[in-house]
């Protein structure tokens, strides 16, 4: 199965390269058939990736522990659901999942837009294929998820980290990836528009929905990450400005900016360079975010490990993206010139512009602060770090300004607002804000930041209500219906605008939740049995600590009684779970008492003596308004859903895209799951039998590796018997093969003599007077070339593709003399025969 998987990846790489070349050639020659061929190859990549994903999921379900990746991220006792999600649980698999999603999205995008944007499609195919090529190349050369153990296949896996065995965590990465990968589609269309010079608004129409769709999933992914951090990590908060979180936030900022500035281009034909730039930046930031978290450039508590090769490959790719994309932008600058100028700063487009600047500034700032330790080390040699307080200090005022603009934008008119207009529009929202401010100040709130935030929330809400109200009133007058019908009709007539307003309501709710953070209380205590503590309006009493075991894990649970005004209102059970095989990494089971106003959040600290002494070591947090963040996201998703509805229809049933994209993706995954599940059922029965025979083989071999060095060498030295097809001597255990047995014996003897790795290799080289038996060439001198080979090959391949694309697509008339004198009869016959072949 592993071999099949590797082969599929390789095949996908080849097909993808073909698609990239042939599309460019087809577009430049104007050949319909070549373009069609490219699109076909593009679809084929998707099919290949789907099968490869099925193979991977199957390997997880059936527990194919010869594959290293499967061993690392699953084991036999893991629930079915987490076996499937292990697919994207690690670095290699997540790259593969990335390519899979990209190929699916790309296929959908091309299939849907094929007729409408005919001139763009070949370049869209070429761009997406090139991105796929990069990731496939990564997998083929460096991070093949199908790498197998050649010897000593473990009987069971190591299991997924218990922290990740959480429902939110299972769906958080795919959602974030969907957002990330989806951003490639607008980028591809942008590049296609730049290359072809079709820089009117048509490419924007093609990508607007994709951006919204990806943006929704990006927001969803970020929210899920917050929920996971809040409920599972148990440190009392939801956002810590960790580099990994920031990586997801960066493209979110630029995508948000793009969604706004698109409207300015549509309405006023301005900001065209800016829009293209934003699309490129967003895509770049998705790649950069991946790079940041995968290569170990930035230290993070939960980044993947350090990997220099990967870092270099990514750096090259990112430089290529930037050079190529911005090179194109500069080349097309004359075509991108704006047709209008800003009339007044008191206009909606100006508000949008400022909003864009701030959002991009947010991205730049977060990027800067995240990279600051790395940057400072590179520049000064001192590793300086900045913590969450630094981020908060900056992002708090910026966030408030953004919130203010959210309220301001809809109140301003396009082009220029008159004074009368402003007075008319601003009266009610301003009153709402001032009244809120006064009321809260009267209640006794004193901190400026949350006060400002609450007042601005009121302002935005009032603005949006006013928009809906006035719109509905006018519509009722015009159509003569009742108010509610008018309201629905209003939303139906202009879904993007009113959907956007609903998204703003969601944002307001999220901001409410953020403001509540200012009133957070956090205490750490140790409570003896029966001892009490008071936090906010709650009094907590320790009613004992108990230990239980359910076979899979040991659970230490504290019984905490919660009192308010002397009455017991609840009992909370914060716990620690110690999973088997992961005893050193207990998971925190936070106990949360949720109310609309605030969460009471209790964490039990790891304290093994706790059971004996009955002392409970607790972190107790009161988080006001935190639930409004999750609720706000729900509203935001609803609003995006409305904005995503197709222009004509007012129902999901008639949705073309991306509602279709979402459902078909879901259906796709579901099919995979179902297919995999049946397979697993069959395979698991086979597993019930006696353990595989190979283990007895291992025992019979006298020279079983005793030390890590010996095992390593057994894998490096290849058997010279000639019958086994150059298996290494650790693996060549055929009965007939006395040679490997003898070689293992020699190796064991060398090890016993206490020789080092290099000495042994040298001894073998001398003995067999060649390097024939070395499984891998020595990493020094001339042999280093062999190590470089795959990378040189990759570079050569990239050049070859580019060369072929340019060379083949040269117009025939440019070299007319090179064409041999045509024989009309022969050509005709050739044509006929070719047609028959088709």
């Amino acid at each position, binding site marked *: 199965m592993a071999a099949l998987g590797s082969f599929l990846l390789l095949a996908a790489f080849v097909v993808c390269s073909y698609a990239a070349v042939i599309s460019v050639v087809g577009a430049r020659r104007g050949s319909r058939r070549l373009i069609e061929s490219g699109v076909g190859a593009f679809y084929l990549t998707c099919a290949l990736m789907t099968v490869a994903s099925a193979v991977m999921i199957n390997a997880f379900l059936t527990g194919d522990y010869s594959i290293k990746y499967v061993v690392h991220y699953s084991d036999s006792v893991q629930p079915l659901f987490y076996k499937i999600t292990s697919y994207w649980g690690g670095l290699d698999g997540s790259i593969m999942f990335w390519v899979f999603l990209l190929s699916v999205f790309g296929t959908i995008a091309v299939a849907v837009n094929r007729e409408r944007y005919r001139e763009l499609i070949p370049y869209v195919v070429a761009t997406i294929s090139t991105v796929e090529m990069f990731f496939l190349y990564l997998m083929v050369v460096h991070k093949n998820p199908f790498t197998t153990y050649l010897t000593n296949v473990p009987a069971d896996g190591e299991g997924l980290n218990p922290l990740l065995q959480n429902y939110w965590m299972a769906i958080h990465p795919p959602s974030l990836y969907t957002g990330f990968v989806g951003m490639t589609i607008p980028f591809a269309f942008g590049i296609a528009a730049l290359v072809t010079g079709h820089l009117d608004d048509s490419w924007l129409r093609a990508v607007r929905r994709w951006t919204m769709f990806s943006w929704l999933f990006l927001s969803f992914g970020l929210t899920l990450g917050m929920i996971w951090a809040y409920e599972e990590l148990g440190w009392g908060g939801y956002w810590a400005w960790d580099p990994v979180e920031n*990586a997801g936030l960066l493209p979110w900022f630029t995508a948000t900016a793009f969604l706004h500035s698109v409207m300015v281009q549509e309405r006023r034909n301005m900001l065209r360079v800016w829009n293209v730039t934003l699309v490129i930046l967003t895509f770049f930031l998705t790649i950069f975010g991946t790079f940041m978290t995968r290569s170990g450039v930035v230290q993070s508590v939960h980044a993947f490990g350090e990997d220099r090769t990967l870092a270099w490959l990514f750096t090259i790719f990112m430089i290529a993206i930037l050079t190529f994309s911005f090179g194109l932008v500069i080349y097309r600058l004359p075509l991108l010139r704006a047709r209008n100028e800003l009339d007044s700063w008191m206009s909606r487009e100006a508000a949008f512009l400022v909003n864009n600047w701030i959002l991009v500034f947010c991205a730049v700032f977060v990027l800067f602060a995240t990279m600051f330790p790395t940057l400072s080390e590179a520049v000064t040699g001192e590793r300086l770090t900045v913590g969450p307080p630094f981020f908060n200090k900056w992002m708090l005022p910026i966030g408030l300004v953004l919130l203010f603009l959210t309220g301001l934008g809809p109140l301003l008119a396009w082009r220029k607002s008159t004074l009368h207009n402003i007075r008319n529009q601003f009266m009610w929202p301003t009153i709402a804000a001032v009244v809120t401010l006064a009321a809260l100040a009267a209640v006794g709130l004193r901190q400026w930041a949350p006060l400002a935030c609450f007042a601005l929330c009121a302002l935005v809400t009032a603005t949006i209500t006013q928009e809906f109200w006035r719109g509905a009133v006018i519509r009722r007058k015009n159509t003569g219906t009742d108010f509610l019908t008018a309201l629905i009709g209003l939303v139906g007539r202009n879904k993007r605008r009113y959907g956007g307003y609903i998204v703003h309501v969601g944002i307001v709710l999220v901001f409410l939740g953020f403001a509540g953070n200012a009133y957070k209380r956090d205490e750490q205590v*140790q409570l003896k049995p029966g001892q009490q503590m008071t936090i906010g309006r709650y009094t907590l009493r320790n009613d004992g600590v108990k230990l239980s075991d359910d076979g899979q894990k040991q659970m230490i649970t504290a019984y905490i009684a919660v009192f308010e005004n002397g009455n017991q209102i609840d009992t909370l059970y914060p716990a620690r779970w110690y999973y088997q095989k992961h005893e050193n990494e207990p998971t925190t089971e936070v106990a949360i008492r949720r109310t609309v106003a605030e969460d009471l959040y209790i964490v039990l600290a790891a304290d093994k003596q706790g059971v004996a002494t009955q002392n409970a070591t607790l972190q107790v947090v009161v988080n006001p308004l935190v639930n409004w963040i999750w609720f706000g996201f729900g509203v935001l998703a609803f609003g995006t859903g409305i904005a995503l509805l197709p222009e004509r229809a007012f129902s999901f049933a008639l949705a073309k895209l991306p509602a279709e994209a979402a459902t078909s993706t879901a259906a796709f995954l579901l099919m995979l799951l179902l297919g995999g599940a049946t397979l697993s059922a069959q395979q698991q029965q086979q597993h019930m039998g006696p353990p595989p025979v190979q283990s007895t083989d291992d025992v019979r071999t006298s020279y079983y590796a005793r030390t890590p060095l010996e095992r390593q060498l057994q894998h490096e030295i290849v058997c010279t018997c000639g019958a086994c097809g150059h298996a290494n001597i650790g693996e060549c255990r055929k009965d007939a093969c006395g040679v490997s047995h003898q070689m293992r014996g020699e190796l064991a003897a060398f090890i016993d003599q206490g020789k080092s790795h290099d000495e042994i290799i040298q001894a073998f080289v001398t003995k067999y007077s060649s390097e024939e038996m070395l499984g891998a060439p020595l990493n020094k001198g001339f042999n280093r070339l062999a190590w470089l080979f795959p990378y040189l090959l990759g570079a050569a391949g990239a050049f070859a593709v580019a060369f072929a694309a340019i060379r083949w697509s040269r117009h025939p008339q440019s070299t007319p003399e090179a064409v041999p004198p045509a024989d009309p009869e022969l050509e005709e016959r050739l044509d006929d025969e070719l047609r028959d072949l088709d």
Partner: protein
Amino acid sequence: MTHRYIKISVTVAVLLLAFTGLLWSTLREGTEYFKHVDEVMTNRQAWEGKKLQLHGYVVPGSIYRKRDSLEYRFKVQNNPARSSDHGSVVEASYTGIVPDTFKDEAEVVLRGSLGSDGFHTDPNGVVAKCPSKYEAKAGIAGT
């Protein structure tokens, strides 16, 4: 036209200046030095009182906890316990809940400042990594 360009460049200059100033001032308070125990202890006086993130390894058997409280005292050395040379050692104190991974030999980063009687760790200032194989277990974390 030139008038307009002057206006734009002045605006840009003012904004840039204000921005740089703000960034500079916040960075001065906001940054912490990331240092290894050896680097700090070789020139102890120079680092006293500065905000630090101190990287090191918990000395085996050095963790003491005051009975029925959350007060900890422990020692941190520059090199892992496995290595032959342990490097400099510093006393550290902390009050609060420690992470699960905080134990003997654990690799830690402490946020706080150095005083004459040892390193004072800020509340929630202990970040500890698993003693072994952290990387393999890091697993997913979004992207």
